[in-house]
């Protein structure tokens, strides 16, 4: 189990910047579509949803399609770049509350 802090908006509205996610290391055979995973793409850890698993490769896509750099840009990635599956997360209530205040 490891935890990470979300930076960026590509998984909004589910995950927002500042949320803390907890991920479990999983075997490559246990990557399924629709789960949220953390992957290492060229040395940078990114968080995305699995769109498709095919022939040992995964298509990663952000929930917020308008603000995400994902497999639409970098293509299918091998399963072994997936570091873990997000099992639960703690929303950053302070930031969410503040952004609501800003809107009104």
């Amino acid at each position: 189990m490891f935890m990470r802090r979300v930076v960026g908006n590509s998984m909004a509205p589910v995950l927002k910047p500042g949320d803390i996610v907890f991920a479990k290391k999983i075997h490559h055979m246990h990557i399924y579509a629709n789960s949220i995973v953390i992957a290492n793409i060229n040395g940078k850890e990114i968080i995305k949803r699995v769109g498709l698993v095919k022939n040992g490769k995964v298509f990663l896509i952000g929930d917020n399609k308008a603000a995400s750099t994902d497999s639409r840009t970098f293509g299918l990635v091998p399963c072994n770049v997936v570091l873990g599956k997000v099992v639960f997360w703690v929303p950053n209530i302070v930031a969410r509350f503040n952004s609501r205040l800003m809107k009104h």
Partner: protein
Amino acid sequence: MFKGFIKPVYAHCDVPCGIYETDTIKHSADTCLKMVQKIEDLGELDSINKYNNFVRMVNTKEEHAQKVKEQAYILWSDFFKPEHLTAHPSLHDIVWQVAKQASVVKHAVNKEACLELNERVAALDELFKIVQSGN
């Protein structure tokens, strides 16, 4: 509050998110040509309305020539990758020629310059399509 000790994971927001097109740049280059034609059609500026239209057309030409440059820069910096440069060594020159010609279009009311801009944009479009279909 956890900034210091929890490693970040990126839900990255690199607008423009993999959506690239050349319609905007072609449309803008065409607009420049159209504006020059319309300015020439105005003839002598003998009424206040003609002055008004003249200024609007020059403004539009200026604006769209700038848009051509911006669109070319977006493709250049975000769409094209190093491997595309290896495959198409003329890439830098093609983009540069578009940007240069867009500036020439701004400088004068010159139909030839606009036609030249359209040609250079077409060359960039052609390269874009080749690279895109190769992906």
